[in-house]
């Protein structure tokens, strides 16, 4: 880990040197705090992130970044506890850190951009190598744009010893020994993910812009949570998900400038379906207002509604659903409501065009969201499901030199 951090610092230093020699350097530093509560247990995740991008030539820019998830708290480990006591919901104490290091480049001309990147994510029980490529072009006096993106990841998930019958397989109890070839009680499974996304933006009038997006993703491999178990009889077995999942989504968004208010209305709709028979619709409405030349404030609301996966059951003893079983409440029918706001402050330049003496641009962003989850078919007997209320707060600094 220390070695990785040193490599990142070296890369950022190289980018800085290149920037001072050639052209513009952009740096973004952000940190998000996610806190989830609403029951007998809670969870907190802190996500720091640093990204840098530098123009090393007129048509070429390089980027590098690092982010982490620092997780602490508890999560439900065994679903459908048979007793009424809160203590009967078996929980797992969780303390883990995930790091993601990445880099890439972009080639640009006046109308088009071609970019590619690589990232490596690792934590005690999960590893992921991924690359992505995208091409974007603007047409018709920049009134139309298209972007095609593809991402591929090669992941490894830690697990415990296997069993011939999934109903006899226990859950992973800890990440100790994960990815240690000499540990006979640990195995790892592959997960391959392909993602393809096509989006287009069209100017419809002097005040209105439309965006359409289509995406597809294919997942193949171990898609269960190794830590989660489900009671399917006298014992609890590790949840058992299908090994393939194809996911499709379509998004339509608008930006409409309201002249009398000097603000933009930002509605969007996303429709989703997948081969696990999960269907969903998400509606979002945002409004962003300029306050003078330096401040922007945005408020928004989002409603998400989904059906459950075909193999989801609230109680596999009374209502089995074939060969698969899950303890993932996110695969149950649910609704979420998100409300939030953000404030962006761009520091104004001085008479010579500099910001704070050395920057060409400098801005601060504060963002806060409240996410409430309504679970329609997920119960622990008479115990209320925990962790249905989440607070997400972000503070970000963006600077350009």
């Amino acid at each position, binding site marked *: 880990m220390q070695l990785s951090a040193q490599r990142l610092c070296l890369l950022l230093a190289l980018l800085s040197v290149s920037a001072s020699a050639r052209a513009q350097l952009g740096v*973004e530093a*952000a940190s*998000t705090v996610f806190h989830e509560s609403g029951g007998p247990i809670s969870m907190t995740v802190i*996500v720091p*992130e640093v*990204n840098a991008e530098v123009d090393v030539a007129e048509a070429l820019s390089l980027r590098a970044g690092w*982010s982490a998830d620092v997780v602490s*708290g508890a*999560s439900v480990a065994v679903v459908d506890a048979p007793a009424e006591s809160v203590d009967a919901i078996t929980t797992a104490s969780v303390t*883990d850190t995930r790091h*993601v290091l990445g880099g890439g480049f972009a080639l640009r001309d006046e109308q088009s951009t071609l970019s590619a*990147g690589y*990232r*490596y994510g690792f934590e005690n*029980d*999960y590893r*992921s190598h991924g690359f*992505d490529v*995208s091409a974007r072009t603007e047409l018709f*006096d920049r009134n139309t744009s298209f972007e095609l993106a593809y*991402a591929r*990841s090669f*992941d490894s998930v830690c697990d415990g010893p296997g069993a011939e019958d999934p109903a006899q397989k226990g859950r992973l109890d800890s990440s100790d020994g994960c990815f240690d070839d000499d540990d006979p009680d640990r195995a790892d499974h592959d997960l391959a993910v392909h*993602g*393809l996304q096509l989006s287009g933006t*069209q*100017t*419809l009038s*002097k005040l209105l812009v*439309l965006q359409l997006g289509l*995406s597809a*993703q294919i997942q193949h491999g171990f898609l269960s*949570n190794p*830590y989660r178990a489900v009671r399917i009889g006298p014992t609890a077995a590790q949840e058992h998900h299908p090994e393939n999942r194809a*996911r*499709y*989504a*379509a998004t339509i968004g608008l*930006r409409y*400038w309201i002249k009398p208010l000097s603000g*933009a209305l*930002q509605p969007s709709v996303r*429709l*989703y379906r*997948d081969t696990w028979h*999960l269907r*969903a*619709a*998400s509606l979002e409405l945002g409004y*962003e207002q*300029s306050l003078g030349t330096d401040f*922007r404030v945005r408020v928004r609301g989002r409603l*998400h509604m*989904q059906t459950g996966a075909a193999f989801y059951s609230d109680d596999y003893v009374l209502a089995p659903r074939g060969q698969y079983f899950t303890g993932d409440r*996110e*695969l149950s029918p649910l609704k979420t409501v998100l409300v939030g706001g*953000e404030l962006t402050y761009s520091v104004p330049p001085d008479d010579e065009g500099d910001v704070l003496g050395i920057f060409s641009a400098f801005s601060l*962003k504060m963002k806060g969201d409240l996410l409430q989850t309504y679970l329609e078919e997920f119960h622990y007997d008479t115990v209320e499901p925990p962790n249905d209320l989440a607070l*997400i707060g*972000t503070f970000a600094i963006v600077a350009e030199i």
Partner: protein
Amino acid sequence: MALRSSFSRSLLVAIALCTSSACATVRPQDKEHLAEPSMAFSSGGASTTHEQHVLDNREGASGGGTTRGGGCGCN
């Protein structure tokens, strides 16, 4: 079934909108309001990525595109 038909209908409406005369070219000198930061669809940077990661792990139907990050959200 209702979601399936609304999915198809929305796609058709969107395609019709974009192929209609409403897509008339707006001249560069008329793009004063379109150039406002509030009119951009581009990503809001790290804060948007973080929010998407949260939603990916809290809604079974979020994600599914080319979201970067890795990790199973096991916790």
